[in-house]
């Protein structure tokens, strides 16, 4: 069998929804266990004294990247069939800023607000309601901003495709960036821990 299983027709629509449900449950569970259900922990990364969000994200990125690369290299996964969102440069930068603003303001991103709400946190619920109001407003405004939302379309972009470097080199570079980011984050944690919490090297 070659992955992606759904695209190759190994299972149908219904079964893929069941799989999606199970993966979703596991995803939420691990987000909660990583501490992503708490706005305090999430916001801490903006003050550099607890960088676990950054670390978990980067771990997920390089795990998935290496997994996809080597599964592809071993012929177990057809990389060309993986869906990824097309790039609309300027709209996505603007969207990123809006999301970041909301993240700092509310302490959650959309996914983690669901995790937070499911653990019964009131701020999580309120944030989630805000998310839906935002989706509604965006949907209603879409006809007005559709020109902008579809501008600077670059199609499907990959790091190696954009920089014209071999795929393997891009993989290696991202691993190096992640490892450097990890050490940098640990350094920042130690430094800012004492500043914000009056503690020394007690990050974990």
């Amino acid at each position: 069998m070659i992955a992606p299983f759904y695209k190759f027709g190994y299972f149908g629509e219904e079964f893929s929804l069941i799989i999606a449900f199970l993966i979703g449950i596991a995803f939420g569970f691990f987000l909660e266990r990583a501490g992503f259900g708490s706005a305090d922990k999430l916001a801490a990364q903006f003050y550099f004294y607890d960088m676990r969000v950054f670390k978990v994200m980067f771990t997920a990125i390089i795990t998935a990247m290496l997994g996809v690369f080597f599964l592809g290299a071993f012929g177990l996964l057809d990389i060309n069939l993986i869906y990824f969102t097309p790039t609309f440069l300027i709209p996505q930068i603007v969207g990123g800023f809006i999301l970041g603003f909301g993240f700092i303001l509310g302490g959650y991103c959309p996914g983690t607000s669901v995790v937070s709400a499911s653990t019964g946190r009131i701020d999580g619920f309120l944030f989630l309601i805000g998310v839906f109001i935002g989706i509604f407003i965006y949907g209603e405004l879409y006809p007005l901003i559709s020109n902008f939302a579809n501008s600077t379309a670059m199609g499907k972009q990959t790091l190696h495709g954009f920089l014209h470097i071999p795929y393997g080199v891009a993989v290696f570079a991202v691993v190096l960036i992640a490892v450097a980011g990890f050490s940098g984050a640990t350094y920042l944690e130690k430094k800012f821990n004492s500043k914000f919490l009056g503690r020394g090297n007690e990050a974990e």
Partner: protein
Amino acid sequence: MKLNKMSTNKKLGLLAILLGIIALFTKDPAKTSFVKVDPKNLLFESKNTTKFITPFELAEKIIKGTESFLLVDLRSPTEYEKGTIPNAINLTVGDLLENVIGRNQQIVVFSDDDTKSLNAWLALKAMNYKNVYVLKDGFDGWINEILHPKIPLDLKDVDKAKSEKIIQVSNYFGGSPIFVSEGKTIQTEKMEFKQTPTQLPKQSVALPKPEATKKPKREGC
């Protein structure tokens, strides 16, 4: 405990770097095709007529605009410049083999005749593209059935509704239907792209405007 934890992180970091170094020397997995083609299956599919899409079906697909698909004009660039189907892109069969199109994309290919399109279809199928369709009778089919369809004037009511629909679709693409009565052509003007054919009744049903770019289906988080 603390030391142990640190070393696990470092071990994992080292493992990641090691895998990264191996990746440096690994052949690009996106360019390698591991697809095994079952010749029997391919032969069966090539005999199957479901790979064809009629010009009318394609026209409706474009008008509805609900599905995202790629329309590929396989003819020469000069012919493509002269006129093509809205939203079509001009590629050669060679381009198709270069993996320029995502394999999960729905593709409709057309050419002057079916031979070239069927070659492309076969090549794409062999590369395990899932949704490849061939426009029946190619661009000529498009001209004959959409831009200049023959509409018989003496028809029963049932057929009238049908030809009404064809006229609408033809108008949408700026075509001009040819009206035929008992084998004789009534409208014998030169076949050119016309915006509004003179003999037509006013359109009652408004068709949606064509959208330049379709919003692709979202699968992300």
